[in-house]
């Protein structure tokens, strides 16, 4: 809803905080999600995401959410779906070129970003949308990515060892393993 969307942008700072909390919870759930299988949680989570974000931000479920970099103003509501800033056709008063009664989502985005702690993220150049992800859950994608990064950081030591002893890896692969260890195979489980 347009009115709710405007409200969310006015409250961009609170939503930014809320979003960070939500993200932390989702990342913490990663081991659980992995055990159930991300495939199986995809549908229910996407459903909840569609309802809540649809109400709050007029979300279009692009699957690659960038709200924290766009002042909590969803760029997919721009009729040109611009991901990096307004076009050159904004009307006087900051209204959209294509839908004259709607405020330009990018005028709102810069206002929202100015209220946010991490508002500077709006300066980052974003890639074009991957249209094959349309309809999928962005929340799960983010938590998967973040969790993978954490895992990678934890495993950096082991990977470095494998790379430092390349020949040992060839002649005795188990002495310098590179593949990810299954959870039950190790005693000192460093992964939560």
């Amino acid at each position, binding site marked *: 809803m347009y009115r709710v969307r405007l409200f969310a942008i006015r409250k961009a700072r609170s939503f930014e905080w809320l979003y960070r909390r939500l993200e932390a919870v989702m990342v913490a759930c990663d081991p659980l999600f992995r055990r159930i299988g991300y495939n199986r949680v995809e549908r229910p989570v996407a459903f909840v995401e569609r309802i809540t974000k649809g109400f709050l931000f007029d979300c279009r479920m692009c699957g690659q959410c960038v709200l924290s970099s766009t002042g909590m103003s969803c760029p997919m509501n721009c*009729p*040109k*779906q*611009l*991901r*990096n*800033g*307004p*076009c*050159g*056709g*904004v*009307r*006087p*008063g*900051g209204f959209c*070129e*294509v839908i004259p009664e709607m405020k*330009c989502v*990018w*005028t709102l985005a*810069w206002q929202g970003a100015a209220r946010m702690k991490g508002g500077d993220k*709006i*300066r980052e*150049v*974003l*890639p*074009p949308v991957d*249209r094959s992800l349309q309809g999928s859950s962005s929340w799960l994608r983010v938590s998967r990515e973040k969790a993978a990064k954490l895992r990678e950081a934890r495993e950096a030591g082991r990977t470095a060892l494998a790379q430092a002893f390349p020949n040992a890896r060839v002649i005795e692969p188990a002495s310098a393993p590179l593949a990810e260890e299954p959870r039950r195979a190790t005693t000192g489980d460093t992964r939560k």
Partner: protein
Amino acid sequence: MSEPGDLGDIVRPYADPPPGHVSDSRLERVLRSGRFAVTAELNPPDSADPSDVFDAARPLGEVADALNATDASGANCHMSSIGICALLTRAGYGTVYQISCRDRNRIAIQGDVLGAAAMGVRNVLCLTGDGVGTGDQPGARPVFDFDSISLVRTIRTMRDEGVFLSGRKITRPPRMFIGAAENPCIEPREWRPERLAKKVEAGADFIQTNYIFDLPVFEKFMARVRDLGLHERVFILPGVGPLASAKAARWMRSNVPGIHIPDAVIERMEKAAKPAEEGKRICIELIQQIRDVAGVAGVHVMAYRREHQVSEIILESGVLAGRRPRRRVVGQAQ
């Protein structure tokens, strides 16, 4: 008669850029040498006859370092930008191939960039594009797969990394001088310089702006641009053009997206005995004032249906300082 396959006369050899340059574009050379550059917009014909393209180019070519071939601007159908650029490049003109994100997706655009480079086109201008609703075919499907900024980054990646966005290798990368647009006088004005910064970050080498009729607003914009240090990282060519009459100016203001004309300018047109002459005078004055703004590297003239005035405007403004950007003989560098 030359043999088929012996294309020496028609096709420019694929030259490597001179040292310190990203392309072998004449426009880039003029700008990097610190000379005041002039580009001009060409009105694309609704015709398949190449002589219509050359007729449109002739009055602009004697004062412009490069001609912009618009890509269905205003979402109206005309001869394609790539077709016009291919013809003009062969005739020795410098050309700016305009790409709007409205009509083509990433597959088509990346292929066209290679095609344009192969035909000798050395400048490209990345645009978002007007909505389809403003044009002659409002029922068309808008594409907007890229936005202008991700398009800039994509072409830079093709040029500098030698890969498509998919990561596939390009054996001979397109050596293009990459341009983007800006519209300093339009909302949200306070963020326009920040948006320009994003375009520079994405990889823009030069900027052509929409019409500047409001000098104070433009000066404010440029002050912020200088604060951000952008004028040292990108060549800025503000857009100018002669108005035909007060009525035309009003029409443009309310019907063409992204055009801001202050009331004072329209009043001046209204009072003039010879509006066309007055339009030309205003344009010359603006060019001279814009030239004196710190950080400006040239001007971009858009004289829709007033192409015959362009030579006089540029020569009378004195910005070329005696320089004559003539077109080169085919076979030489663009």
